[in-house]
């Protein structure tokens, strides 16, 4: 559920309810099985997604924060910096631009790289013959 729904404003209460357990019991059992609290797991999952989006998209940091289900840019920046050692902006800057990673095939590059302004007379049907 966390993996599928991290982008929604999920809380630990929602997870406990879905599991049919009280919040305290759910948190205790979750920690026993997975080694970390459900809150920490959810946050980690969101930060991993945010890191992937910082690398693979050119979207603003604010948009990425909301896209992974977090509501406050301030606490996103703080948590991200704690997890990755750098701010989201610095993290992005440490990688080549997302366009370097995009596996855009050469046929697309050729087609879309064609000159946008054509000046050949034959294109407008006014060639002098």
């Amino acid at each position, binding site marked *: 559920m966390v993996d599928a729904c991290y982008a929604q404003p999920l809380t630990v209460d929602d997870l406990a309810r879905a599991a049919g357990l009280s919040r305290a019991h759910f948190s205790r059992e979750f920690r026993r099985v997975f080694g970390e609290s459900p809150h920490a797991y959810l946050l980690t999952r969101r930060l991993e997604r945010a890191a992937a989006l910082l690398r*693979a*998209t*050119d*979207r603003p940091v604010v948009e990425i924060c909301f896209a992974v289900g977090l509501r406050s840019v301030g606490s996103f920046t703080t948590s991200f910096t704690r997890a990755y050692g750098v701010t989201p902006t610095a993290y992005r800057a440490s990688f080549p631009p*997302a366009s370097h990673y995009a*596996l855009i095939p050469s046929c697309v*590059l050729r*087609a879309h*790289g064609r000159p*946008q302004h054509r000046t050949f007379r034959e294109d407008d049907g006014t060639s002098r013959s």
Partner: protein
Amino acid sequence: MVKISFAGVWVHDQDEALAFYTEKLGWELRADVTLPELGGYRWLTVGPPDQPDVSLLLNAIPEPPVIDAATSDQIRSLMAKGWAGNVLLTTDDAQASYEELTARGIEFTESPEERPYGIDCAFRDPSGNQFRLTQVSEAAVA
């Protein structure tokens, strides 16, 4: 081993398509990059969260000078008729997926039905691309 990494569909509006695939179908955004040097070409990919090595490319229909206007029109015409492409999806439980996706606003063109190979249903994305969602029977997999 040769594997599938990306497959593409044409879409009328990339933002509308992205909202459909992420908010209704429940997939995740993989890459979203706009390249000014390619006339604003936008590389936009999505995929199922638990299938990280396969992505669907949501391609805007190219216009001149990338391709000629007649070809752009042909693509739009095929999309309108539902013949511009097919994507086949699988699920563990066709009825449950059908109900969940219907609740999220996906309009199905076929409700779940028993077939020799399993139970399947079908829907179209906002651009008219046909998707078949199948719960493959164990006999068909073996």
